[in-house]
């Protein structure tokens, strides 16, 4: 019994995921199906990839609001430049654009000392403007069918996009848990001054995490564009909000110093399963918004209730 309580305390989101799976399995004949599960994984991978990076950034005590715009920029470049550079070249430029935006955010946050929220809020507005100007507000279409074939392809009976997401999740988990960089992520987020005194180079460390999330946002956008064989300038709107939601559902504290990839995965899956299940049950889209919003607040409330007595609370 104690063990269960302990688990609820540490990863309440996985209990929620479990309840969702049971509930939807009984209420829709289409839910409990291996093909549906691989659908859910592909759907989760877009937000999920960004959420991996967001976990690092948020444990650091920072935040990145520019990921949705970065995703759109990378997707637009990766599709739009194909006629000139070919698929490989265009995809590389797309990934590079994410790294550059991430580095820019990181350097500004490091050198100016402006709060990451403000730095990335500015970037969110500016980068989206860049996307609109570059694309001329048009969607781009990948003429080479190989591009969209990749998005639809499978390996060992699993969609490639889902496999990429799973692999990167495992890597992110290992890095956060077992490397020096991972330990520093917690140290810097827990107490920035103490971390600096302990010899951690806080600025470059945070820069690295911003580059990481920029890269992952770009990758996520490019993989999304392979699903569409196209990119649209509005792609990724509000994704920063959903990503933050997923990460917070997974138990990462906004104040920094606390969080895990396992929890984030739970948060990402919770949202994807809820969306998928409510689709299958044909819950009217208006109510989906109310339900998702309420769940976020309720989970925050429960989390605070459990976390507070131990003194780990925000």
């Amino acid at each position, binding site marked *: 019994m104690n063990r269960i309580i302990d688990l609820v305390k540490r990863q309440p989101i996985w209990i929620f995921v479990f309840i969702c799976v049971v509930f939807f399995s009984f209420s829709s004949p289409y839910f409990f199906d291996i093909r549906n599960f691989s659908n859910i994984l592909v759907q989760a991978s877009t937000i999920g990839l960004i959420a991996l990076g967001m976990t690092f950034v948020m444990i650091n005590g920072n935040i990145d609001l520019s990921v949705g715009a970065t995703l759109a920029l990378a997707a637009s470049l990766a599709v739009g430049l194909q006629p000139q550079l070919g698929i490989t070249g265009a995809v590389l430029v797309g990934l590079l654009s994410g790294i550059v935006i991430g580095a820019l955010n990181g350097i*500004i946050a*490091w*050198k*100016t*000392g*402006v*709060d990451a*929220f*403000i*730095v990335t*809020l*500015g*970037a*969110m*507005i*500016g*980068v*989206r*403007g*860049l996307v*609109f*100007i570059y694309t001329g507000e048009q969607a781009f279409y990948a003429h080479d069918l190989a591009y969209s074939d990749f998005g639809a392809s499978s390996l060992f009976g699993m969609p490639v996009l889902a496999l990429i997401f799973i692999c990167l999740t495992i890597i992110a988990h290992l890095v956060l848990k077992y490397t020096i960089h991972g330990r520093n992520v917690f140290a810097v987020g827990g107490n*920035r001054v103490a971390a*600096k005194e302990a010899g951690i180079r*806080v*600025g470059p460390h945070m820069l690295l995490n911003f580059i990481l999330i920029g890269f992952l946002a770009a990758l996520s956008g490019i993989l999304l564009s392979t699903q569409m064989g196209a990119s649209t300038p509005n792609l990724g709107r509000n994704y920063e*909000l959903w990503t*933050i*939601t997923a990460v*917070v559902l997974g138990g990462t504290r*906004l104040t920094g110093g606390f969080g895990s990839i396992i929890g984030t995965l739970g948060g990402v899956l919770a949202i994807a399963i809820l969306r998928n299940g409510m689709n299958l049950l044909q819950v009217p*889209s*208006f*109510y*989906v*918004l*109310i*339900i*998702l*919003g*309420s*769940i*976020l*607040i309720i989970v*925050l*409330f429960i989390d*605070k209730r459990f976390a507070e007595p131990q003194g780990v609370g*925000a």
Partner: protein
Amino acid sequence: MLQFFGKHGISVAFVLCVVIFSLSTQKFLSTDNFLTVVMQASIIGTIALGVTFVVIGGNLDLSVGSLLSFATVLVVDLHDKVGPGTAILLMFVFTLLIGSINGYLIGYLRLNSLIVTLGMLSAIQGITLVYSGGKNVDISDQTNTWFAFFGREALFGVPVPAIIFIVLGIILQIVLLKTGFGRKIFAIGGNATASLFSGLRRNRLVFSTYLLSAFTTGCAALILGSRVMGSQNNVGEGYELLVLAGVILGGTSLLGGSGSIARTVIGVLILAMIQNGLLLLGFPYYTQWLVTWVVIIVAVWLDIAAKRGKLFSTY
């Protein structure tokens, strides 16, 4: 030099904007155009007044965009059903009710404001759609209603939206600077835990900042509803970020404890001027977003640099 910019940077930027745009296009510097700028800024600006209180109190409010949609749909829909007076009254009742939910969750339950208002952003959007059934709402007789006053008319040549924005701004600036309430808001934001106040009073103060931001959002809905005389359910989408950009540009710290209504007003006006000026110059619409990016970061940077006495941070 640095100190000067930190203190007056926003005013310098304001003047700089006016000068640059005036020199580059003849159409910019005219009373008519200036009133257009103030009027276009009035909706975002009015909301920003209330949000400034929230941010000085050390919290955030991302739900104001959804709340604006809700309030506008409500007041426009009720206009034909119960008459403009009752419609306005009911709109404020329900808007403040939603504001009080925010205030309760953040003030009394002490939940994180970013996440709560993020959740409310989505929930309020859903509530609006359920209320309207997803349909546009319209005022059928648009010419003979005194509701037109808030968005379409002018007093002494000044558009009413601009008057609402400026008058409300002056009142709230006085409240913030000259009343005990205003000083307490600074105190809870400045140092929430070691604040002079007991927990209960702190809770009540945070609660009241959210009522205030709901109230100014309601005022903005009056302007918007009256100008458009109809509403779509997503009319306020994305406003929360533009509002926040204006507040931040005005130098209000996200950590709470410092900020000013007057500077928020200038911040919002700068954003509106950038949009207006760049359009007059014939730049593509979205260039303003790029400029906004640069302006926000430089403004906040100078502000911080002045406080720490050094341009670059040390870590």
